[in-house]
């Protein structure tokens, strides 16, 4: 008998077809970074990394509305599949969404997304030379007592290698982090939280 599994769902968009969309998001992030005087970095690490404001889904651009639709749809599919009921409509959900630019040496410390229901990430740019485990998105075993097993030296992990155009949806309480990458190039991802009651 298997009990208490944690559900994570993959989704994807065609990276070639969506490249113009991705580029618009990336251009916006570069512009915001250029004008930024600093802000909260949350989990992001690296002296040349950038964590955008979390308003990417609330801007008056077509790409922002597209992004909101994509996030709502993928999160809604997840919620229906694993909770057996529909998520509230796009208008009734509060979606916070931000971009993370990780350059050589950049990473993300262990964190979760408190006070949200469903979270996710979509990778929109990955360095061509990136090789796992560098840049991996890593979930940590959410069962702290599993460490009491005498064979367990560390909590188990599950790593996901980022690919442009692919993404995952997961419960917001799941601890995760991003491995640093040491090759040239930027690893850019869009992350989000969906809140509703």
């Amino acid at each position, binding site marked *: *008998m*298997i*009990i*208490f*599994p*944690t*559900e*994570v*769902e*993959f989704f994807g968009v065609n990276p070639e077809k969506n490249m113009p969309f991705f580029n618009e998001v990336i251009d916006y992030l570069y512009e915001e970074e250029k004008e930024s005087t600093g802000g909260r970095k949350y989990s992001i690490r690296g002296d040349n990394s950038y964590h955008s404001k979390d308003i990417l889904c609330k801007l008056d651009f077509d790409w922002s509305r597209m992004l909101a639709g994509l996030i709502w749809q993928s999160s809604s599919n997840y919620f229906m599949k694993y*909770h057996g009921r529909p998520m509230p409509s796009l208008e009734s959900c509060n979606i916070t969404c931000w971009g993370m630019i990780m350059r050589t040496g950049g990473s993300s410390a262990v964190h*979760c997304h408190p006070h949200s*229901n469903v979270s996710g990430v979509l990778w929109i740019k990955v360095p061509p030379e990136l090789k796992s485990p560098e840049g991996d998105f890593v*979930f940590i*075993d*959410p*069962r*702290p*007592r*599993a460490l*009491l*097993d*005498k*064979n367990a030296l560390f909590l*188990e992990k*599950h790593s996901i290698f980022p690919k442009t155009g692919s993404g995952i949806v997961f*419960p*917001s*309480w*799941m*601890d995760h982090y991003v491995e640093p990458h040491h090759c040239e190039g930027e690893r850019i991802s869009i992350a989000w939280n969906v809140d509703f*009651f």
Partner: protein
Amino acid sequence: MELFATHVHTVELKDTETLFDDIIAHVKNERDTNPNENRHMYSLNGEDSYHSRDNLVNLDYEWSKMLRSLVYKISSDFAEYEGTPIPKYEDVDINCWCMVMGRGSFSMSHSHPGAEYSGVFWLQTPENMPGNQGNFVFQDPRMGARYSIHKPEGTAIKPIPSNGIVFWSWMEHFVQPHYCEGERISVSWNINF
């Protein structure tokens, strides 16, 4: 994709009637000779309850030796499945005890620290015990899930005589009270090495 699931081994025991009768007779005799002890031992609660000593597999009776073999075998099957085999029969410590739960008795949330594998099988349950009473309930070991607004309920297992489970000792669990006439009797154990 499902990650970090927790495995529980379920077993259905065969030809255990005599063994169960011997265990119950021993435990009731132990209770009768200690009428004021062990009502609230460890997690057990209830005026009409009894927690035996934990030496049931170390006694000089045939049924005790059979019980030790049975407990070792089903624990070993689970350990093999989990990829962490346990040492040979002679090299493991097994603590094994019986819980007698009369009307209103229950077991508080607990785990079995210091052990590797634990298990329980049920010898007897009150007739017509409702589905929401007397169940063995695992609590979600994922702290984040437990405190989310979509928190899953615990996983309840209905006690059926001759059925049993083996699980990681760190898994928190409790037993719901029952309000029926009759006794819910189970044997539990810890394996350590």
